[in-house]
């Protein structure tokens, strides 16, 4: 593309002014405040359009800066250029009310449409971003507090990793990492929320386990008790049997005793009776009964009766004792009352077992439920988002490395060439490499030593900047675009300026140089005389 005419109807300080350009290198010289930068901005606005910014940014943007004071409704211009062998006339009106644009091919009068991308086609991929970072070259500006070499390195870092377009891959990566952190945090919160619900399950499980344990021990205790009574009973029965046997023999003895006593009694009575009879016989023989004899006999009878009675009583008592023993044995052993108690104990055990089983099944059900608790969709989505952001970061790093190494390789080689040309071979190459703390370091090679950029003069740094931009423009643009140099050479010494201009004219492309000095013009006319 070659710009042939910029006709400024009303833009900034200019109105109804024509500026003509031609192919090759040309210089627009003007003093400070002449409006060189305005022409530069006009060309940019014509190529890419210009819209009014929104909000506070509007106060400082190009639209406001160049909006004419006198006739703001008449904010327009025409740019004529040739491209691919055809001539075009691009007309734009920037005013708020009457914004419009038209593109006409002057050779055949064909009307093209800016809205439908015809201009974009002609620009061959040149975007405002690429325009700003390549063919439109001003002076390297450093931010307050930034060394110029740092500004250069930052430019190069952004440039090489992002391939231009004013993108900051580091910041983009940081954004992705922060988003991932947020997603992970949200995921943890969601998991905690779900875990809360699951914890209730676990809690119920442990309650159940505890209850089952106490049921178990209750069961064991009751069972032991039951066993003990049963055993005790058996033992009791055994001892009772033994005792029974014992008492049976004792009984016999006792019976024998009482029988003996009774015998003694009976014998006594018999003896008494016999004595009494004998006393009667004796008394019958005399007139007077023998009283003492009778009395003695009666006493003997009474004693005999007493002994007999006591013997009988003993017999009766022994039998009663035996009866009582029997009923007691019945009560403790297979007696009705004892069976009932045992049945109750057994029923109790059964109840505990059933209760335990119910809890056991409930516990198993709960454990099953706990095991099943699946992830919520929110959880799955957040997990997905984490994966997505990790993938994005990973690919971005790869792309940056690739873009970086690609551009570094290509631009680096080209920039070295240009830089060597501009410095007339004083420096044979440029080196760009990753710095330890991120970013890139730039160094130049003078054939013997590698000199880091921060040790170079402002002029040399500007030359590196120029070389890198020109290299990038060559590599990025399909269609050769006019290079616009806006006070770029202010810090160049005459020799380097001459070399730079020589390199530019050697390119055989349109170069528009805006300057406030006469040097460029002088060198060029001298050079033209040379060539």
């Amino acid at each position, binding site marked *: 593309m070659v710009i042939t005419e910029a006709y400024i109807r009303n833009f900034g300080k200019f109105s109804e002014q024509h500026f003509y350009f031609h192919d090759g290198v040309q210089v627009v010289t003007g003093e400070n405040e002449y409006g060189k930068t305005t022409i530069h901005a006009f060309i940019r606005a014509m190529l890419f359009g210009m819209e009014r910014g929104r909000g506070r940014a509007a106060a400082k943007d190009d639209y406001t800066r160049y909006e004419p004071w006198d006739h703001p409704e008449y904010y327009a211009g025409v740019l004529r250029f040739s491209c691919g062998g055809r001539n075009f006339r691009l007309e734009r009106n920037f005013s708020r009310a009457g914004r419009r644009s038209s593109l006409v091919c002057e050779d055949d009068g064909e009307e093209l449409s800016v809205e439908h991308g015809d201009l974009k086609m002609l620009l061959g991929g040149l975007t405002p971003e690429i325009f700003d970072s390549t063919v439109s070259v001003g002076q390297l500006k450093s931010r307050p507090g930034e060394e110029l070499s740092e500004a250069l390195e930052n430019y190069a870092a952004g440039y090489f*990793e992002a*391939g231009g377009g004013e993108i900051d891959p580091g910041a983009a990566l940081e954004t992705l990492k922060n988003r991932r952190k947020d997603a992970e945090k949200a995921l943890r919160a969601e998991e905690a929320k779900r875990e809360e619900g699951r914890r209730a399950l676990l809690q119920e499980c442990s309650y159940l386990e505890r209850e089952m344990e106490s049921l178990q021990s209750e069961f064991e205790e009751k069972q032991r008790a039951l066993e003990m009574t049963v055993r005790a009973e058996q033992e009791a029965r055994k001892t009772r049997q033994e005792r029974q046997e014992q008492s049976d023999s004792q009984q016999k003895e006792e019976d024998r005793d009482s029988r003996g006593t009774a015998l003694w009694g009976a014998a006594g009575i018999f003896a008494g009776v016999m004595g009494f009879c004998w006393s009667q016989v004796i008394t019958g023989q005399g007139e007077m009964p023998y009283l003492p004899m009778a009395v003695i006999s009666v006493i003997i009878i009474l004693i005999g009766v007493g002994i007999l009675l006591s013997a009988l009583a003993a017999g009766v008592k022994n039998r009663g004792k035996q009866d009582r023993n029997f009923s007691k044995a019945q009560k403790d052993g297979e007696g009705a009352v004892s069976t009932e108690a045992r049945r109750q104990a057994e029923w109790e055990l059964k109840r505990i077992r059933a209760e335990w089983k119910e809890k056991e*099944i409930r516990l*198993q059900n709960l454990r099953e439920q706990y095991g099943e608790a699946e992830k919520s969709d929110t959880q799955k989505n957040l997990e*997905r988002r984490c994966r997505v952001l990790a993938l994005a970061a990973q690919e971005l790093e790869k792309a940056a490395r690739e*873009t970086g190494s690609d551009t570094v390789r290509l631009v680096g080689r080209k920039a070295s060439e240009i830089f060597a040309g501009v410095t007339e071979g004083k420096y044979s190459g440029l080196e760009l490499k990753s710095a330890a703390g991120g970013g890139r370091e730039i160094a130049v090679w003078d054939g013997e030593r590698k000199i880091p950029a921060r040790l170079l003069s402002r002029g040399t740094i500007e030359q590196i900047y120029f070389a890198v931009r020109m290299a990038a423009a060559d590599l990025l643009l399909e269609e050769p675009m006019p290079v616009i140099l806006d006070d770029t050479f202010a810090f160049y010494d005459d020799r380097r300026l001459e070399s730079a201009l020589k390199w530019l004219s050697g390119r055989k492309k349109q170069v528009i140089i805006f300057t406030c000095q006469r040097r460029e013009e002088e060198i060029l006319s001298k050079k033209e005389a040379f060539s």
Partner: protein
Amino acid sequence: MKFIHIADVHLGAEPEAGHLKREDRARELWDTFEEAVGLCDRESVDLLLIAGDLFHRQPLVRELKEVNYLFSRLSHTRVVLIAGNHDYIRMDSNYRTFQWADNVYPLFGKEMEYVEFPDIQTSVCGLSYHAREIRKPLYDGVRAPGVQPCEILLAHGGDDRHIPIDRDQLAQSGFDYIALGHIHKPQALIRNRAVYAGALEPVDRNDTGAHGYVYGEIKNGEAHIRWIPFAGREYVHLEIPVEKTDTGGSIGKKIEKSINESGNENIYKILLKGRRDADIEFDTGRLAGLGNIMEVLDETAPDLDLERICEENRGTLIRNYIERFAGCEEGSEEYQALCEGVEALLASRR
């Protein structure tokens, strides 16, 4: 002969229910079941057929007692049930020992068995699960016993791990009606003859659509059935289309409107789909508060004109980045990563 066929009641399940407590939703399953049993009495149907998974897990004795009480109050209806894969008859299952009311006929055998009701000239065949999974196609080759004019099969399963069912085999089995359970979505395998009643109430967040039971009548050897919606709530997956012009507020309005249209009693999962303005992010947590919503999933992609971005950034990192994802499908994880990265890169412009 009139019958009601229910299946997959899943008593004891505690399904997710949005803002509703899980316990309350569990109670609702019982309530609906109770109503269904009550309905049998009101309609004086002859048989209540329960095609498995009456319980969600192993039934507790107290649960069996509750169920049995409901059955025992039926004045006319007899109940036939089988155990499914969820309430399968484990070694220690309470099903093995429970004493049912006189009008309840469990078919709890591992092998096919049947029960006859001569007064209504009907027999019901069936078997129960004794394991969580049965991969054998036990219903293939089963034939109606031919003991009564009217013969019914109670069957549970129909996927690979739960007695695979072959439709043609069932068609040849000779049963007048096959009451199927296991698949929660109501559907007919053979029209009017082999039917999944579906879950009585939806028991899982993915049991979308209406749920209910089958009301049927067998006359002259032909079944006439009707599927009747009965569940108190539905799970609804609501897709909300998102456009470039939408904001959080407008999406909220759309959600509220859709919920009002589809019923406030239902339980919702909201899916946001489409292209959103790249600057807008939806607060899904806040949107979930707009109704009985389990969750709101944002599956929108930012509205980025990738082609244009590519065109404008020739040879740059953005373009290289976009090209790394060439050929990925819209909506895939790769596509999402692409959008995230491009957004981050565009935002980093100085």
